[in-house]
């Protein structure tokens, strides 16, 4: 019951802030609303007792990516600049894309059989230990993720080299 109330508060916050983020006229305000959406998502993870993912959400998305967005806005846009209004064609395309996205997400959600859905007695809400996450991330056995982890770091390295290449511009 309490969980349901908290979930409703978070859901309303996320939905309202998402709509505000898309419709805001000033781009920095849009970034701020996006920050609240991301914090609300972290709240959902906390509600699921997945504390590690909540902290990752806050530190990577809220503390890292939104700060990058704000820096990019500072460096590129003029003060008081409004977002230009879109023409009808772009709005229609946008609506179509979002409907398709909702349909896809809804299809997956309704089709997928969740692990504990048929068996409500299983305790799904115990806090996941940091050690478990660490060994799963760094292990080489079945259901452990060392290889994807390292491949991701190659991707990041490529991004860094690309950034340096663009910034040098000789």
């Amino acid at each position, binding site marked *: 019951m309490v969980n349901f109330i908290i979930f409703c508060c978070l859901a309303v916050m996320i939905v309202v802030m998402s709509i505000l983020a898309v419709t805001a006229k000033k781009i920095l305000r849009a970034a701020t609303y996006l920050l609240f959406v991301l914090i609300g998502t972290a709240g959902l993870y906390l509600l699921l007792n997945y504390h590690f993912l909540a902290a990752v959400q806050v530190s990577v998305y809220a503390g890292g990516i939104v700060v990058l967005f704000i820096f990019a806005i500072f460096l590129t846009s003029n003060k008081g600049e409004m977002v230009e209004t879109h023409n009808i064609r772009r709005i229609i395309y946008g609506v179509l894309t979002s409907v398709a996205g909702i349909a896809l997400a809804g299809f997956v959600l309704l089709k997928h059989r969740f692990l504990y859905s048929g068996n409500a007695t299983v305790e799904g809400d115990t806090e996941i230990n*940091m050690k478990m996450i660490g060994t799963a991330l760094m292990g080489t056995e079945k259901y452990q993720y060392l290889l994807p982890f390292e491949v991701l770091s190659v991707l990041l390295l490529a991004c860094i080299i690309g950034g340096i290449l663009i910034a040098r511009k000789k």
Partner: protein
Amino acid sequence: MFDFSIVTAWIDHFLRTYLDEGWALLVEFVLVGLVILTVYAVLALLLIYIERKICAFFQCRIGPNRVGPWGVFQSVADMVKILLKEIIKIDRADPLLFRIASFLVIIASICTFGAIPFDPALHAVNFNMGVFYLLAVSSLGVIGILLAGWSSNNKYTMIGAMRSGAQLISYELSCGLSLMSIVVLAGSMQLSEIVNQQAEMWFIFKGHIPACIAFLIYLIAGHAETNRGPFDLPEAESELTAGYHTEYSGIQFGFFYLAEYLNMFIIAAIASTMFLGGWMPLHIVGWEAFNGVMDMIPPVVWFFGKTFFCVFLALWIRWSFPRLRIDQLLSLEWKVLMPLALINILFMALCVM
């Protein structure tokens, strides 16, 4: 040895005899929140008084001495003044972001404050990934500073915010890395577990040289995180009037001011928890009588003693060194502190193995 578990257990028992479990929990949550906010405000007053007195002694002055004996009520009087001040409306500022900014800064600070273990029983937020939580939540404050600088419609606040953003993002790295070397030593990220492991010996002694290096790096980087001392470029008053909070007035400025002082306290508290044993008394293996005497001192006294020692170090540095230039500041972080912290983690891992 007195600790607060007696008090908290009594309150819990008292509430449960009169209320259902759910309502008792709700009352306890509200109580915990109120206590944290009150302690936050009272500590801010205390820290402002301490800072003014110590600053005065460093400069061979007397400091506040009119309100109450030795001026102890000076910061209370200042608080009343700041609460009654008018909040000035800024022309062509973005009013929404202008307000949100001050709240973001203080909320990030309070969230971090809640996770500090003051005592075995006085520990509100005790997650499995406690250290990570501290780093994650404290990184929200920089957004507040950036928004404050942008929304005030002023060149100086803008420059201050940009400097602050660059500074905080860079120094967060070596802050996190130096804490990670202690996590390697402890094998846990939970703050209560980290404190309990220091029962025999504090980590700064147990971890040999790597722990000492990590402590130094953390003190420097943490001090830079608070925007104070030789690292106060974001609000360098001789060049930028007051940096990112130039345009703020009344209690909105008060929020920035409170958060600044409490961030200093939080950095000192984390340093004392991770390196100096938090509320754990000083124990030396084999000296039973000595350990017994040390156990007589309550944990809260140990905690605040160590924390105020670290606060004193921060004030000492602040009033002794001249301000750095922004390029010196960033090269100190990227060329000295961060490589040192990375190598230090490696050494710590070797020590632990």
